[in-house]
């Protein structure tokens, strides 16, 4: 890492940052955990997901809507978080509980003599960025023309791309992050079937891909399917994002599963981050996180806890389940070897602290914590699958909505394939094996030489998955057959909501939607349809477009209506994948 310094001034406070890291990392390193405040409640807000699609906004002189994941290449940067008037902050904090989704509809409030001044006041004080009139270089569109476009450069994406390239196919890989390798690029656990850590495995793949001069595009986001083309965007930081037109015969999505924030009391406090982001901060950016708690009962939670302990961030593993039933060897041994504290059977969980997390109350026990890492549930890039007419169903083993697909990852849309974790495989070696099988399959569709080996590869992949994870294999074969039969799986598992106070469990941090809001929508207004709940509460309509609240929302609704998530279903997804600036869209040449 080159240690060139960048001077960042946040709200008048000077901070020292290195240039090659995202602003958010720099702020976190400097102890700044809170960026803004909640829209209705005025509670402090930090980030939960450290990803290229971060919905938080910072305001600089050049861009009122600066993505905190941007890297900046100028010497000085003055940014501020959006401020609201003091009176607004005081009022909303005082009556914060009442400013919920129901607030404008309360009997006194909705009468015109009261509502008119209230609405004026609320409008005037919205804690939103104010747009600024700036000039600057215009963005320019580029075109990427290829046979197959792979979205995601994790183990599956790269394995697929390398194999297809070796078979003679023309392939391009896009990755939204600055770093290739996806989740594996900061995961140092040694997993079954691989001799090295996943990190060195994927670094090896990246090296090979670069040696073979594969077409790798970093910092490029797949932004959506449209009637007249597929759109991508190259993230520009302070410069305009440049639109990209993807011209490809086939799209292969290796977008993985996204970690979701857990549901416990005060889960909106800065310091609550998802496990993958915690690992990214410690393992990749070497940020000292302090003491932490990991929530979850699965192998990713165990892997996170082990690695955090090794990195010196004292980790406690907490779960609502009675035992660590979701964790198997070698991670159980790993947890023992690293002497990770494990607390099971927690009923009530609540974070405490003013402005940021200081501790976690697990039932009667107080666990000191500077951060809480959620590793309870995931879901794939549903926004892409919804747009591309891929059918989506619920899989209880993975605990997520998943795109339905065939053994080669083929979906209801003939030009779209899904591979890797986003297809429902939780095991890296199996991901890699299935990705290669898909490569052989697409090679045969493209009429490339060596096209007849696909079936053999598929058998290897099936065996690898069945051998290591028979449960995942069964679930996976169900997703496969459910695509064929258009039926939906039965499910038994539910995600736990750990608190007695639904006012402080935030499901959607963008729109400040709490569990109480969902409860009100379902129980008092009788909205059973996710589309109606979404429109009443505003869940999934905020800046992250449901990337943090989609599955939590489905779980919350299904637990309140008593219908399984497969019946609750999901809502209609629309482009774009990330919010894109007007000037970039203006540069499109369809």
């Amino acid at each position, binding site marked *: 890492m080159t240690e060139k310094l960048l001077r960042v001034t946040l709200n008048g406070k000077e901070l020292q940052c290195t240039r090659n890291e995202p602003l958010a990392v720099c702020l976190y390193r400097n102890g700044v955990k809170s960026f803004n405040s909640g829209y209705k409640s005025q509670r402090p807000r930090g980030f939960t997901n450290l990803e290229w699609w971060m919905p938080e906004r910072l305001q600089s002189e050049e861009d009122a809507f600066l993505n905190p994941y941007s890297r900046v290449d100028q010497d000085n940067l003055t940014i501020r978080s959006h401020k609201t008037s003091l009176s607004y902050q005081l009022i909303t904090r005082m009556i914060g509980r009442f400013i919920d989704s129901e607030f404008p509809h309360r009997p006194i409030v909705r009468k015109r003599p009261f509502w008119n001044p209230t*609405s004026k006041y609320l409008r005037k004080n919205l804690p939103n960025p104010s747009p600024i009139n700036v000039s600057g270089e215009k963005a320019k569109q580029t075109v990427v023309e290829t046979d197959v476009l792979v979205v995601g450069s994790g183990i599956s994406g790269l394995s697929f791309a390398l194999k297809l390239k070796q078979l003679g196919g023309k392939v391009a890989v896009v990755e939204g992050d600055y770093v290739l390798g996806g989740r594996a690029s900061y995961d140092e656990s040694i997993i079954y079937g691989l001799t090295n850590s996943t990190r060195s495995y994927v670094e090896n793949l990246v090296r090979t891909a670069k040696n073979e001069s594969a077409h790798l595009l970093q910092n490029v986001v797949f932004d959506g399917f449209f009637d007249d083309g597929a759109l991508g965007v190259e993230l520009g930081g302070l410069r305009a994002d440049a639109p990209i037109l993807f011209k490809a015969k086939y799209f292969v999505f290796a977008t993985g599963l996204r970690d979701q924030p857990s549901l416990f009391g005060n889960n909106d406090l800065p310091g609550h981050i998802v496990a993958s982001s915690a690992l990214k901060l410690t393992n990749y950016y070497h940020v000292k996180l302090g003491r932490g708690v990991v929530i979850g009962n699965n192998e990713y939670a165990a892997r996170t806890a082990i690695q955090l302990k090794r990195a010196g961030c004292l980790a406690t593993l907490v779960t609502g389940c009675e035992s660590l039933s979701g964790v198997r060897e070698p991670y159980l041994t790993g947890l023992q070897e690293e002497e990770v504290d494990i607390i099971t059977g927690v009923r009530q969980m609540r974070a405490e602290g003013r402005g940021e997390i200081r501790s976690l109350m697990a039932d009667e026990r107080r666990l000191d914590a500077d951060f809480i890492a959620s590793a309870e549930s995931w879901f794939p890039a549903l926004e892409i699958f919804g747009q591309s007419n891929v059918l989506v169903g619920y899989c209880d083993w993975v605990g997520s909505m998943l795109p339905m697909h065939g053994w080669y990852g083929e979906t209801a849309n003939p030009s779209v394939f899904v591979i890797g974790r986003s297809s429902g495989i939780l095991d890296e070696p199996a991901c890699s094996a299935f990705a290669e099988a898909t490569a052989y399959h697409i090679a045969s569709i493209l009429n490339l030489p060596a096209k007849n080996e696909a079936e053999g590869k598929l058998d290897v992949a099936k065996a690898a998955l069945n051998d290591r994870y028979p449960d995942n294999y069964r679930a996976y074969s169900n997703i496969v057959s459910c695509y064929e039969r258009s039926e939906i799986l039965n499910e038994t598992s539910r995600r736990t909501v750990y608190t007695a106070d639904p006012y402080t469990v935030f499901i959607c941090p963008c729109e400040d939607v709490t569990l109480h809001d969902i409860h009100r929508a379902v129980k008092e207004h009788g909205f059973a349809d996710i589309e109606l709940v979404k429109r009443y509460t505003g869940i999934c309509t905020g800046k992250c477009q449901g990337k943090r609240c989609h599955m939590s929302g489905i779980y919350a609704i299904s637990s309140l209506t008593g219908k399984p998530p497969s019946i609750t279903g999901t809502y209609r997804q629309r482009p774009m994948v990330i919010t894109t600036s007007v000037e970039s869209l203006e540069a499109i040449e369809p």
Partner: protein
Amino acid sequence: MKTNVLVVGGGIIGLSIAYNLVKKGEKDVVVIDRKYVGSGSTTRCASGFRVHFFSDENTLFAIESRKRLMKAGDELNFNPLVEPIGYMWLLYDDAILDAYRKTNVRWGQLGVPATPMTPEDVNETHPYINTDGMIAAYYGPQDGELHHDFLLYGYRDAILKRGGKILEYVDAKKLLTNGRRIKGVETSDTSIEADKVVVAGGAWSNQILETAGVKVPITPERKEICVMEPMKHFIKPVLINTKLKSFYIIQTARGEAIGSIDHPIMKDTFEYGNTLEFLKEYSRAAMHTIPALRKARVLRVWSGFYEVTPDHSHILGRSPEWPENLYIAAGFSGHGLLMAPFAGEAMADLLLENRITPLMEPFRPSRFEEGKQISEKLVIG
């Protein structure tokens, strides 16, 4: 299943009719929708309301509707967030200015005068608007925006509380006739017998009407729409740029800027979808009209259908040539939300008392055969 009045279509029109029926004491009302309430066009709309139309008929109808809209928050259990923030038409063409000038005289007579503005006035009061090439603007202070979903939910709530029924995910397949009488509707679930059937199916109305041999001149027209990330309130009125393919933009209560442009024009299709062409043209118009939107970020785009009639005005009531007991309330040509409160009331009068309000009379289905179309050119927003 048997009912007095069956409303086919659970959008804002269907629910407004049902709401007015239950309000007038007719509790035996059933509304059916093929998906959830509002799933057709209501939840997809940009949610502006205005009283300014080029024709007297529409202007008078909209004035009545506005009165009811302003009271909706007091009457319903939901607050439709009605905000009379005004409409502002930006004019670039002498001929168009002339038309506005003439119509404004009429608007004054009808009690809803708009305010003419010079580009200098606009610069002073709305400095964020680019006035290059603009020759004048008209500002309608009576107009504004509301939250379409909350008005819809208010109706839904009131209907359910007063004993009406709303059946979701029930698709009307066929009108059942008994000679020259309509006796009910066959649905995807079961048959529903009804004394009176009202088709409020929006752009899809013809699909059900055709099963009884009736056809109305309604064409679906796909419109794309786009919403930007929340920002501080700075776009005060609803802005309409009459030059740039009728670009319009509204900033909602939450600070999101929602708007559209008449491009590309797609008719006679029921396929939802979005185009890059729209995004490009819309962004160009947005940046040109309001330069500060340059760095604003687009959250999402979607599409929906205008139910367009040859004279861009709705069709209410029934034609004497139709089978008995069949009524229609559709063809609102993009103005369904703002016309709904009064359209529902007028239809309820017709259904219960067989009374045709004079304001509703010009919108009769037979006007197209009679050659008595309404001359309406102000169709955007």
